[in-house]
C-alpha cells in the first residue's frame, strides 16, 4: 500500500471484547471503511464506492500477506464488498438488479455517514463543560439526612375488635368437650338376652338389639358392644351364632338355656 495507508495512522480503540481481533487499531470493518472513505477527502455522500471497495480489498490483501490474524467480520465484509463491486461493474441483466446494486451502495454510504455522525456527537459531547472537569460539584457537601421514625398507627375500631377477639377467645377456652355416648357391654348383653328370649328364631345381630340402643349416634358403639355381648352369650352357651360366609350378616339365636351370672 502507499504511504498514505490507513495502516500508518491507526485509530485508537481498544474494545474490551477479546473476541474482536483488532486490525491495526480498527474496531471493525465499518470503522476501517470509514477511515478509507475519509482518504478520498470528499463529502461522504460523494464517496466512490468502487474506489472504497478496491481500497478495502487491497488493505485486507496486505494484512493477510503480513499474516495478521483477521477477524471473520473483515472477511465477511470483504466477500460482501466483492459481490457489490461485481454488481456495480457488470452490466446488470435486469433493471431491478441494477437498482438493487445501487441501493446496496447507497446503504453502505449511509452507514458510513451514520457512524461519522455519531463520532461527531462524541467529539461535541466531549467538548461540553463536563462535570468534574470544567464544572465542579461541592467539594464537601454537608449531606442531607433522612431520619426515619416508626410511627405506629391504629384506630379505635381496630382496638375494639381486638378486645372483642381476646374476650371471645377467653370464653371459648371454657368449653367442655362432651363425653361420647357409648353402649356398655353389659347393657348390650342384657338387651340382647331380652330380645332373644322374646323371639326364639334366628335374628340378624343388627336387629337383635333393643330399638333404644339403635339410635344413629349410638349405632357404631351398639354394633361393637352387641357383637361382644353375642360372643359372650355364645361362650356361656346361652346363644348360638351363624354366618354364611365372611362379611355376610351374623345371625344369633337363643339356645333356650340361661345361666345366672
Amino acid at each position: 500500500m502507499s504511504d498514505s495507508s490507513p495502516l500508518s495512522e491507526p485509530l485508537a480503540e481498544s474494545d474490551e471484547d477479546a473476541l474482536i481481533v483488532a486490525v491495526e487499531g480498527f474496531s471493525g470493518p465499518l470503522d476501517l471503511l470509514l477511515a478509507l472513505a475519509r482518504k478520498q477527502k470528499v463529502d461522504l455522500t460523494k464517496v466512490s464506492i468502487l474506489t472504497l471497495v478496491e481500497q478495502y480489498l487491497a488493505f485486507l490483501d496486505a494484512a493477510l500477506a503480513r499474516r495478521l490474524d483477521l477477524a471473520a467480520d473483515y472477511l465477511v465484509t470483504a466477500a460482501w464488498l466483492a459481490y457489490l463491486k461485481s454488481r456495480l461493474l457488470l452490466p446488470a441483466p435486469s433493471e431491478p438488479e441494477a437498482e438493487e446494486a445501487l441501493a446496496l451502495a447507497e446503504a453502505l454510504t449511509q452507514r458510513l455517514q451514520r457512524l461519522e455522525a455519531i463520532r461527531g456527537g462524541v467529539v461535541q459531547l466531549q467538548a461540553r463543560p463536563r462535570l468534574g472537569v470544567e464544572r465542579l460539584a461541592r467539594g464537601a457537601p454537608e449531606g442531607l439526612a433522612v431520619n426515619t421514625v416508626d410511627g405506629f398507627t391504629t384506630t379505635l375500631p381496630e382496638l375494639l375488635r381486638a378486645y372483642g377477639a381476646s374476650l371471645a377467645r377467653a370464653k371459648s377456652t371454657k368449653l367442655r368437650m362432651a363425653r361420647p355416648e357409648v353402649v356398655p357391654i353389659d347393657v348390650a348383653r342384657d338387651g340382647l338376652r331380652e330380645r332373644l328370649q322374646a323371639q326364639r328364631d334366628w335374628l340378624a345381630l343388627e336387629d337383635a338389639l333393643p330399638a333404644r340402643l339403635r339410635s344413629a349416634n349410638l349405632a357404631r358403639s351398639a354394633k361393637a358392644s352387641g357383637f361382644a355381648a353375642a360372643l359372650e352369650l355364645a361362650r356361656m352357651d346361652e346363644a348360638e351364632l351363624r354366618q354364611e360366609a365372611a362379611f355376610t350378616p351374623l345371625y344369633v339365636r337363643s339356645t333356650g338355656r340361661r345361666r345366672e351370672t
Partner: protein
Amino acid sequence: MTDAEGPSLSTDTAQRIVEALLFATPVPLTEAEILAYLPEPLPVLPLLRALQTDYAGRGVQIEEHGGRWAVRTAPDLGRYLQRLQIKPKTLSQAALETLAIIAYRQPVTRAEIEQIRGVTVSRGTLDLLVDTGWVRPRGRKAVPGRPVTWVTTPAFLDHFDLQSLDDLPRLEELTGAGLFDALAAGSDEPDEKD
C-alpha cells in the same frame, strides 16, 4: 495559568474564582492556598471579606476557622436539612389485643393479661407497646411476687382522640355494633378483677 488573558485579572473574576474554589474544595483553604489558584497575585483577604458580606444572611455562608476558609450552610437551617420520615407501622394482633386489655382493665399485670388472652404475652409485645408511647408500667400490685402493673398514657388518649378513659366504649355498647359478634350475650366480664 496557561491562559493568554489580559495583563490584569479583574477583581470580579478573582472574586468568582475564590467563590468557586471555596465551593469546590473538599477541605477548607488558607489564604495562601487560595492565592496559589489565582492566575496572578492579588490580596486574597479583601476578596474573602467581600464574599462573606455577599453571603451574609443567605442560606449558605463563608466561614473562617483557624485561618481556613470554607462555604457552609447557615447553622440556623441545620434542622431543615434533615427530613423526618415517618414510617407507618401497624401493630400485630397480639399487640392490639394486649393494648386493648390494658386500656379496659388498667392497672393490669402481665399475668392478668395472659389470663384474659389465654396465651402468653411476650416481653417483646409489652416493649413494643411502650415504644408506641401508649403504654407504660405503673407501680406494682400488692400480691405475691409484686408484679408490675400496666396503664395507658395520655398519648394513648391523644392517638384515639379520647378525652378520658371513660370515653372508651363500654362492652354493652359494642355488642350491638358488630364488633363483638364472637361474644355471646351476657357475662362479658369473666373472673378475676380484684
